[in-house]
């Protein structure tokens, strides 16, 4: 055990810090759930890619730097310290890309990854269906192989970023006789294909952060199948593993929120201390963010040495999503009567973006597999408790 950064890792941190200082937009971008904001975020991805900072863990041939997970964590720390824009292509770079690296053909990697890296192609995910939410294996959207094309019919929903995104990855039932986890295939679908209707769904903040997608005889070339026919579940589980495992929510994000929460508390201490629970909650937030960082470093070091992510990674998603909710709820308590103001309200000075964060935090325990499902996974696969 050696908890010191190497001089190379320290130099890397400085390199990232300098680049971020020079390149992060001084004015915050508009929300990527608006058309204008989406384009701004796409531009930012392009800028990142030009500096080869888009995804530092990727192989160099796809625009990456072939760096390990510790360097990725350092990158993320500097990224969040610099208050850089949220990654509009996070479905692509954090979820699909690792799956592509594992299951994609060389042709698919060469075709998809470079455009993903530049933000030219932004990805949405298509898992949930109206009757397949937590029970994902109940999905019914069909893909029938006709010649060298799939013909897709059905409906997906809660598809994040789908309103402005270019592509979608998801699972479709290719064996009409199949049940549950069998007979599903992982397919990549261009969202501009004929027969696709995207119906935006406004989220809690009123912006269309997700969408329903209707497929009416949509033709997709078979080269867009990821993994084998009927292997969709296995491929998707790899994606889900990354999602709740390591990549989707790096600790830096929560550590920065915890830091801002401490500052908010200190600035408003006289009024905040009227409720002793607030100081306690701020302290807990700091420790939990720190625990998440420590645990992630431990996992990253283990993976660097050839270890695998196991079912214990389900604990991550519960931990950070509840932490995020708690931190924002505490901030709202500190802000008191001003907490309800939208950031652009004239009287909202000093309120910052806590309300945005608070609203978004409500989704954390729901998306990427509800925390109830995660608890089932922990109980059954990590602790070995009996299935119902």
């Amino acid at each position, binding site marked *: *055990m*050696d*908890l*010191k*950064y*190497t001089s190379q890792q*320290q130099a890397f941190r400085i390199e990232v810090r300098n680049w971020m200082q020079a390149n992060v937009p001084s004015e915050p971008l508009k929300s990527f759930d608006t058309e204008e904001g989406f384009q701004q975020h796409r531009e930012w991805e392009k800028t990142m890619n030009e500096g080869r900072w888009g995804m530092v863990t990727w192989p160099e041939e796809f625009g990456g730097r072939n760096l390990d997970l*510790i360097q990725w964590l350092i990158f*993320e*720390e*500097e990224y*969040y*310290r610099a208050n850089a824009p949220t990654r509009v292509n996070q479905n692509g770079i954090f979820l699909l890309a690792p799956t592509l690296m594992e299951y994609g053909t060389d042709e698919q990697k060469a075709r998809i990854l470079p455009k993903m890296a530049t933000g030219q192609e932004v990805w949405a995910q298509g898992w949930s269906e109206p009757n397949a939410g937590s029970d994902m294996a109940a999905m019914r959207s069909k893909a029938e192989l006709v010649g060298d094309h799939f013909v897709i019919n059905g409906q997906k929903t809660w598809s994040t970023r789908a309103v402005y995104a270019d592509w979608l990855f998801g699972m479709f039932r290719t064996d009409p006789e199949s049940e549950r986890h069998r007979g599903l295939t992982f397919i990549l679908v261009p969202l501009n294909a004929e027969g696709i209707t995207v119906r935006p769904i406004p989220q809690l903040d009123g912006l269309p952060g997700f969408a329903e997608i209707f497929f009416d005889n949509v033709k997709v070339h078979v080269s867009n199948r990821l993994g084998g026919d009927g292997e969709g579940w296995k491929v998707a589980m790899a994606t889900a593993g990354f999602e709740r495992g390591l990549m989707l929510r790096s*600790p*830096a*994000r929560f*550590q*920065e929120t*915890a*830091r801002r929460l*401490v500052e908010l*508390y*200190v600035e408003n201490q006289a009024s905040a201390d009227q409720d002793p629970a607030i*100081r*306690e909650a*701020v*302290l807990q937030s*700091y*420790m*939990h963010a*720190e*625990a*998440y*960082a*420590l*645990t992630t*470093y*431990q996992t*990253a*070091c*283990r993976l660097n*040495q050839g270890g695998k992510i196991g079912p*214990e990674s389900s*604990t991550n998603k*519960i*931990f950070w999503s509840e932490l995020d909710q708690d931190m924002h709820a505490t901030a709202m308590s500190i802000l008191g009567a001003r907490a309800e103001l939208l950031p652009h309200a004239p009287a909202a000075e000093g309120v910052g973006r806590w309300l945005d964060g608070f609203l978004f935090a409500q989704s954390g325990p729901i998306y990427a597999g509800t925390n*109830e499902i*995660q*608890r*089932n996974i*922990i*109980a*059954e696969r*990590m*602790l*070995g*408790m*009996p*299935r*119902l």
Partner: protein
Amino acid sequence: MDFTFSEDQILFRDSVREFLTNEVSAESLRARWDVPGGRSKELWAALAELGLTGMLVSEANGGLGMNEIDFVLLAEECGRAALPEPLVDTVLVATPTLQEAGMDEILTAVASGRSAVAVQPTPGALVADAEFSDYLIVQEGSAVYLMKSADAKLELQESVDPGRQLYTVTWDASNATLLADGDDGTAMQFTLFNRGALGAAAQLLGLSQRMMELSVNYTSERQQFGKPIGSFQAVKHHMANVAVKTEFAKAPVYRAAYSVAHSLSDAAQHVSHAKLAATEAATQAAKNGIQVHGAMGYTWEVDLQIFMKRAWALSSAWGSRGEHKARVASTVFGAERSLGAGQTFASAS
């Protein structure tokens, strides 16, 4: 940056776990509750044989010359086994202090298994295992003393955990050796306290896992409504909540061991975070553990009580939650604070 244990450290941990599983069964623990003294010289000698008592003792004094990072996994195992013998306090708290004070003879006696050393956490505090131990490290004001336990007046104070033995200690400074006083004494007290709290945190981590295992086993067997109760979500989620708290207590405890081993400037804060996180995990494991055991969990007969009671005791030993929160708060809210992304390992680098 390498936040993993070496293969040797893991293998040592595994062999100690196997030893404790065989030698410190629940039946043997119960048997010792009824025996005066309740401690086993034979077991202590066997622990010494494994090298455990002398792990942090220099090789010159017959020890293994290892460090706190090597030992933290073993302290966790002591918790898992609810080991009654004062191994963790002797090794993690007493021997490094005696090493610093040049107490070669006592160190040799500890490494060979002839002696144990009990430590008073703070001036006036109760001392665990004062009678079994041949030597005591005691405190008064800002002074720290070493003495033979035979020269002190000990009074047993029965407590909730029948495997624990707490004593009030009355003593006369003329019978004791001054180890440090004044600023040096305060510094030594601070070090003793950090080491003790680290040891308690590691044991709580082990206790939490043991209670989780007992509860998972029980709920996988116990049938109601024609099914194992562990198949019901309400029961599963109780256990999952314990697993989450336990998973996120591990890294803070291991980091605290590193910080103590390397005398980092924020070691005290790291230890307090570790103690708080491990306490949270273990008390949740106790609370949810007894709940899923139902009425059985409330009995003397079921073994869960052994580990619950140790967890309850250790959660306030070596610093209450309030004391540890205050220590973390002094850094987090202090004027010199340096928080946020990228700061986690700042003091190590």
